[in-house]
């Protein structure tokens, strides 16, 4: 991957990478999923990935519709189970690139156990997990990621539960590549998606996207300017976070408690399931 991205225009990307008969998308105005798709396409283009040898797998939910918009083999599976199907594809045919689109509810709620074990196994998958803090497709119910005290259709008096930090979980489980970005900065996520695809083993890229329709309008975040400002105010780069934690005043440190960390949290090498299986086969095959 070259240091400087030479981005194609959106029109050029559409022509090359999208399944035209699937359009228009199901996404609402102000939704960030289009940006995630765009960044993914730019990353594919940067890598010149062979779409004939790439499978896009997803579960159920708004973000899981993304697999259908890319003109490649795609599998829109059952709710929460994308990683199980993707693991089957990758284990049976390790030469294929397998990219998973999932959401916070799909990937870390109903699919939480699969996330845990797919990371532990270190399946060579690139997982783009889109976190909009809610179950959007069903109209905005509380999710494992919904911020505390937020409102949703099933927390009409405020959310009393603590949200899950998916990246911290992935990091603890030993995922070779873990990053989180918001969509208002295109370059870091494009770079991370490309790095994730190239990484052997499990790569998780969590994308924070606004959902003005289902989440935002119940939490004073319906207007796009307000939402993007909220993300700017509530996120902090991991390097800045660590600097303040080490050198900041008690007041500065206290101000970090409700910030969402963004950045690349983990990036190291670890043999994948497929590689270890291939080694085992070499040893025992007849």
């Amino acid at each position, binding site marked *: 991957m070259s240091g400087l991205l030479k981005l194609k225009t959106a029109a050029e990307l559409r022509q090359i990478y999208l399944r035209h008969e699937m359009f228009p998308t199901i996404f609402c105005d102000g939704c960030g999923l289009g940006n995630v798709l765009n960044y993914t396409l730019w990353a594919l283009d940067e890598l010149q990935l062979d779409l004939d040898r790439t499978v896009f797998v997803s579960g159920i939910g708004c973000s899981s519709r993304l697999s259908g918009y890319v003109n490649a083999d795609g599998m829109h599976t059952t709710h929460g189970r994308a*990683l*199980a199907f993707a*693991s089957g594809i990758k*284990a049976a045919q390790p030469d294929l690139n397998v990219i998973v689109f999932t959401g916070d509810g799909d990937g870390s709620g109903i699919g939480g156990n699969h996330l845990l074990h797919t990371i532990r196994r270190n399946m060579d998958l690139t997982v783009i997990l889109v976190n909009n803090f809610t179950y959007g497709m069903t109209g905005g119910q509380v999710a494992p990621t919904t911020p505390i005290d937020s409102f949703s259709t099933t927390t009409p008096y405020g959310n009393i539960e603590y949200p899950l930090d998916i990246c911290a979980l992935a990091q603890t489980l030993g995922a070779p590549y873990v990053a989180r970005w918001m969509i208002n900065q295109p370059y870091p996520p494009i770079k991370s998606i490309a790095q994730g695809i190239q990484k052997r083993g499990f790569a998780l890229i969590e994308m924070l996207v606004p959902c003005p329709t289902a989440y935002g309008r119940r939490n004073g975040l319906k207007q796009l300017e307000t939402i993007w400002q909220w993300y700017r105010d509530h996120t902090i780069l991991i390097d800045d976070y660590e600097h303040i934690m080490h050198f900041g005043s008690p007041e500065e440190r206290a101000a970090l408690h409700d910030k969402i960390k963004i950045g690349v949290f983990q990036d190291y090498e670890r043999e994948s399931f497929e590689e270890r299986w291939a080694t085992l086969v070499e040893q025992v095959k007849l």
Partner: protein
Amino acid sequence: MSTHRDRLRQAMGDKVQFVQGDDACAYGAILAGCTFFAGYPITPATEVAERMAEILPKIEGCYIQMEDEIASMGAIVGASWTGVKTMTATSGPGFSLMQENLGYAIMTETPCVIVNVQRSGPSTGQPTLGAYGDMMQARWGTHGDHEIIMLCPASVQEAMELTIVAFNLAEAYRTPVLVFIDGELGHMRERLVIPEDDEFELVERTCATSREGYRPFAADENLVPAFAPFGAGFRTYVTGLTHNEAGLPRSASAPIHDQLVRRLADKILRNTDQIIRYEEFGAEECEIAIIAYGITARACRDVVEEGRQRGLKVGLLRLITIWPFPDEVVARWATRVQAILVPEMNLGQIVHPIREAVAGRCPVMLQSKIGGELHTPTELIDALEELRCQVC
């Protein structure tokens, strides 16, 4: 230079073995060309996974132990889309967990085989003992309108043979196929003879030949679409949503849903003559018939001989294919006999489609037995005597 088929045989070991029903299912899968198994340990089905874990790396296949049965079912469906033959094995609690992705396999026309070594339920029940309590779950367990294919072997040898048949049917009709045994048959050891390649048939899914104008869910005259594996450049989109022939979601269309779901059912219902298997004993001059399946049919086979020696004109219809249900075969027997005995290791499940097929032509008596013990020949003879007193 040994061929791939030679290596399969070498991986399984001796041609004649003394093995369990679970082992036989694994051997059947290997003979059928299965190269991918995903599973989760569960009594009394674990030995299927153990055999596959041992054999698959030797033949350059892949075994993966998943985190649960939901994931196992998902993994075999995903793997099948790369063009390989896939299987999982489980028992009742695990089969319950597989239901959603089983429906996905039906909807997306994914060939795969699921072995269920049944144990008593509900819930954890009797893990080490046999039962046939999942017969109706197999038929209706996953939500929505659908057909399913299920085979019920009665011996270790047949468990192997019917697992091969299950793969053939899965490939031919692009649908999941169930092999249902029970804890007794799964753990029972019998003599097993591994057949030579010319002693059985192998069917492979029909693959698409040209990308030009390819429509992944447009069916042939047999109602089955041609398959294009992932990675071959066909760029297929697979979804569990109602989809058109191009594979695109059309979940709000009544005509497209009607056309799709009826075709999925019809590809099985219009080919029942190719799918349905059964065995008949003492069909001639028969007054009382036993209709049985699975391990229960073994005692019934003895009872036909013994009953006839006692002057009871008994016959046995052993159902091998349970779903789609062989109602024409049952109806034909019902016209010739005065009563039908249905021994089942459940509280009465297959007796219902039997009664529907019999349609009042003769009395149908259920002989239910649960708790993990098999029907004994004496119990069966007693039931037949009782039935004769009622009708003759």
